[in-house]
């Protein structure tokens, strides 16, 4: 079982379907100290969106596996208490819009940092909950402003972003408080990049695993560009798509694009070897 469902699910099918994890009482005022930490001294803050500094990359470079493992565990431990995500499907994201209020469309901090993307091109992120009413406190965090959405508008936006090929994931802000619904892609999403490039689990895999029916796959390859996790490739000699289920994050983007309905999402829990691969 997913650790977070076990800890915070309280009988709901998923921890992010448990309304208590969106409750006002979990919302905490952000600390001044963290906000003011010296950017110059801290490459993460200066560069914006890297979870690790060069000391991690250097330890990795010199093959110091013990040190890499130690730093990785330390970072994961800290992130899991404060701010981490889990991949969800479009269907699950749509369901969340009926649990949580308010929902607002905001600019993506990762793409702002990695591309300097202008605000008008960057409204792909969703903030939720009490904190959104106070967005004017932090004009740069919410650069470009905040569009409050009705649940129906939020569903429409999510469906469009899915069509564009962006992965949905849900984020904690002081675990288990859920307040972010991100729509992301590689390489500019800090979380996807950190988990894929460095193996640091700031983004957990979702509750599903994609599976291809080779009988139904007609080799059109329209799914291939949808995978942001390097799980989906193409076998030219067979003219079929191929999914590495151990690498699959279960976002379902490949499945929503397949017009042959050759890709289905299987419950991770139903696959013994994958049930605990998060």
């Amino acid at each position, binding site marked *: 079982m997913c650790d977070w469902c076990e800890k915070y699910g309280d009988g709901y099918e998923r921890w992010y379907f448990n309304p208590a994890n969106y409750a006002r009482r979990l919302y905490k005022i952000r600390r001044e100290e963290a906000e003011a930490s010296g*950017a110059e001294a801290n*490459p993460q803050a200066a*560069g914006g969106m890297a979870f690790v500094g*060069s000391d991690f*990359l250097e330890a990795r*470079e010199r093959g110091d596996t013990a040190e890499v493992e130690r730093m990785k565990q330390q970072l994961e431990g800290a992130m899991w208490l404060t701010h981490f995500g889990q991949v969800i499907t479009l269907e699950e994201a749509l369901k969340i819009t009926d649990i949580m209020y308010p929902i607002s469309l905001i600019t993506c901090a990762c793409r702002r940092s*990695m591309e*300097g993307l202008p605000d008008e091109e960057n409204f792909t992120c969703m903030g939720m909950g009490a904190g959104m009413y106070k967005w004017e406190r932090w*004009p*740069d965090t919410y650069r470009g402003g905040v569009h409050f959405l009705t649940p129906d508008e939020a569903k429409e936006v999510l469906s469009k972003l899915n069509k564009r090929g962006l992965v949905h994931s849900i984020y904690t802000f002081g675990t288990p408080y859920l307040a972010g619904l991100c729509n992301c892609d590689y390489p500019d999403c800090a979380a996807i990049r950190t988990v894929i490039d460095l193996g640091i689990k700031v983004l957990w895999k979702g509750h599903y695993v994609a599976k291809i029916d080779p009988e139904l796959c007609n080799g059109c390859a329209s799914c291939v560009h949808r995978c942001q996790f390097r799980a989906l490739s193409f076998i030219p000699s067979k003219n079929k798509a191929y999914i590495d289920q151990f690498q699959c994050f279960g976002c379902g983007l490949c499945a929503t694009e397949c017009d042959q309905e050759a890709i289905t999402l299987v419950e991770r829990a139903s696959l013994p070897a994958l049930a605990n691969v998060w």
Partner: protein
Amino acid sequence: MLPTITVNDEKCKEPTSCRKCLLICPTHVFGLGTDVGPQKFREIDPSHFIVRAVRLDKCSGCMDCVNICPQNAIQVSFNGGDAR
């Protein structure tokens, strides 16, 4: 092999409107941050934005960033050798 990449903030004045290095880097090594951190109740002036190389593990050493920077503000070196 990890490079040493430096950005001269004195030369790089308004990275938010320039963005050339951020966009040309084939592996998206650079990030944009500020030298003041988040500011309560006010927007940060563009002059406080700075560029840093953060994904050092993905730098191939192509020097596209060095060559495109209109201010010659970026230096990349490998093995501690001479920066270009």
